[in-house]
């Protein structure tokens, strides 16, 4: 769908943000691979198992709701527990919306010793993700690489609860798991760069296990932050320029140290949950494109009017952010969001999201 007075294509709109220029209107981006499947009458598991169907479902949703796929956010390229040999199954039934971990690859301290590095071109869902990448390439979209932060990947290899205990009692085990997570991520990224070319890749990362709902800002600084720094050194060395960081959940206490020396190349897209105020985010990261942060629960359970009003006030806060702004849900768009509520966000942009020519 085109909005009333579109003056730019979707790609131009995103390019203008990356060049610190105002686009024609505030872009809309969603993390919505599973919602898009439901939206097209497909089961949620398709988002994990069928790249063709999933790709076209995402394309239809993007057109229907005028989303700018900056980038097209697909399911994880690196699926932590699965890649390292855990037992993970596809979602099924009425309520499952994501992969279900049946058993973690690391259950005891000795499993950390014996952890084998996955093959970067074959393991887990990498084959499926590569097929999706080829479709994106063929349609002139950036090729997405989706992973979580090394801290989050490591915590999902042994289970977050075990990882939390080791942070205090056996930090050396956490370090080893994070190192393995980091190395695996870059082994796959190198394969991605060889397959698609570094200039076409758009890296997406999220970091839920680092949220202050789980760890302290000190633990963030000691364990998680060093890997963010290393991560961007390696991205730069690979020549990958575009980076989308979803700072998941409540991370207010982590922001000062993250903002102290943001390691990514500017601008990056930094997306925040409803837990982080957009003005605070913009002040902390003035050189980046701020994205967010409509509460997902309200998109699912509110009325279209409520969502429209929330989108309007979010636009009011975000539209003038000097580094640029993208309107989005505060995390993944819930699978069960009513279509009218999702449309209400688009309508709010059409009514209040335009910049003067």
């Amino acid at each position, binding site marked *: 769908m085109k909005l009333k007075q579109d003056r730019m294509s979707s790609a131009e709109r995103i390019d203008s943000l990356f060049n610190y220029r105002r686009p024609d209107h505030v872009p809309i981006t969603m993390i919505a691979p599973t919602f898009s499947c439901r939206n097209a009458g497909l089961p949620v598991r398709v988002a994990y198992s069928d790249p063709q169907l999933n790709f076209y479902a995402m394309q239809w949703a993007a057109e229907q709701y005028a989303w700018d796929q900056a980038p097209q956010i697909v399911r994880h390229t690196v699926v932590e527990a699965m890649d390292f040999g855990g037992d993970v199954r596809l979602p099924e039934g*009425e309520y499952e919306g994501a992969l279900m971990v049946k058993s973690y690859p690391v259950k005891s301290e000795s499993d950390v010793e014996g952890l084998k590095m996955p093959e970067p071109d074959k393991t887990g869902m990498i084959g499926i993700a590569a097929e999706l990448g080829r479709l994106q390439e063929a349609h002139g979209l950036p090729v997405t690489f989706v992973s979580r932060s090394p801290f989050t990947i490591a915590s999902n290899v042994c289970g977050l609860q075990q990882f939390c205990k080791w942070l205090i009692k056996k930090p050396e085990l956490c370090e080893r798991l994070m190192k393995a997570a980091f190395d695996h991520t870059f082994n796959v990224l190198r394969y991605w760069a060889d397959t698609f070319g570094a200039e076409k890749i758009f890296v997406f990362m999220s970091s839920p296990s680092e949220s202050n709902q789980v760890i302290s800002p000190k633990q963030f600084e000691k364990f998680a932050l060093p890997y963010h720094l290393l991560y961007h050194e390696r991205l730069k060395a690979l020549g990958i320029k575009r980076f989308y960081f979803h700072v998941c959940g409540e991370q207010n206490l982590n922001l000062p140290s993250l903002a102290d020396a943001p390691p990514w190349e500017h601008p990056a897209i930094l997306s925040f949950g409803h837990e982080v105020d957009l003005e605070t985010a913009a002040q902390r990261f003035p050189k980046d494109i701020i994205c967010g942060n409509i509460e997902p629960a309200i998109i699912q359970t509110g009325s279209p009017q409520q969502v429209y009003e929330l989108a309007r006030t979010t636009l009011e806060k975000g539209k003038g952010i000097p580094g640029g702004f993208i309107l989005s849900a505060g995390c993944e768009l*819930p699978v069960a969001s009513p279509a009218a509520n999702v449309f209400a966000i688009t309508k709010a942009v059409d009514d209040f999201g335009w910049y003067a020519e």
Partner: protein
Amino acid sequence: MASEEKTREILKAIQDAVVGYDEETCERLCSSVLEEGIDPHRAVVEGLTGGMERVGELYNSQEYFVPELLLCADALNAGLNVLKPHLKIEDAARKGKLLIGVVEGDIHDIGKNLVRIMFEAAGWDVYDLGNNVKIERFVEEQKKANTDIVALSALMTTSMLAMPKIIGALKAQNPGVKVLVGGAPLSQEIAQRYGADAYAPDAVAAVKRAADLIG
């Protein structure tokens, strides 16, 4: 038999061991409770539970986070394992029985585990079904264990949709059972709409609500 002064000293040291997540010391001190002839029930309530209450305060004031909380719970459990066999039946059964689980489709279980820990610390008999628990399993296990309360946790708007069905099925089987719900996307209003008997925003409040429910 230890003097009151000595007893207080040991109970305070147990509290400190829980707060300092010192599993070994907590276990050793609980053994000394038995050796010194101190009432084990008092050691659970004033020592272990008292310690966990302080831990709850540290968590609420953001001095402790989930890693510390989990280790404090390990220390508490180490002590509890020593004392439990020595509690009299009427002590053990003085609180209610609770069945707890994370609903279908949801594997976020850290919050549920903290809720369980607080119930255990408060002396409840807890049956934990883990995460991604199917509706039928809640119904079956409630019948088997005949618990006073079923506690349902959900962290996602998608998975919380299973709650009204679970509550309906539980009440159809046993109209007397009370259902407590919680988790980040829930609210008092949603809990009421779903037919729950109570909602709690956090683990400490959950124990209070549950106690109110069974009067």
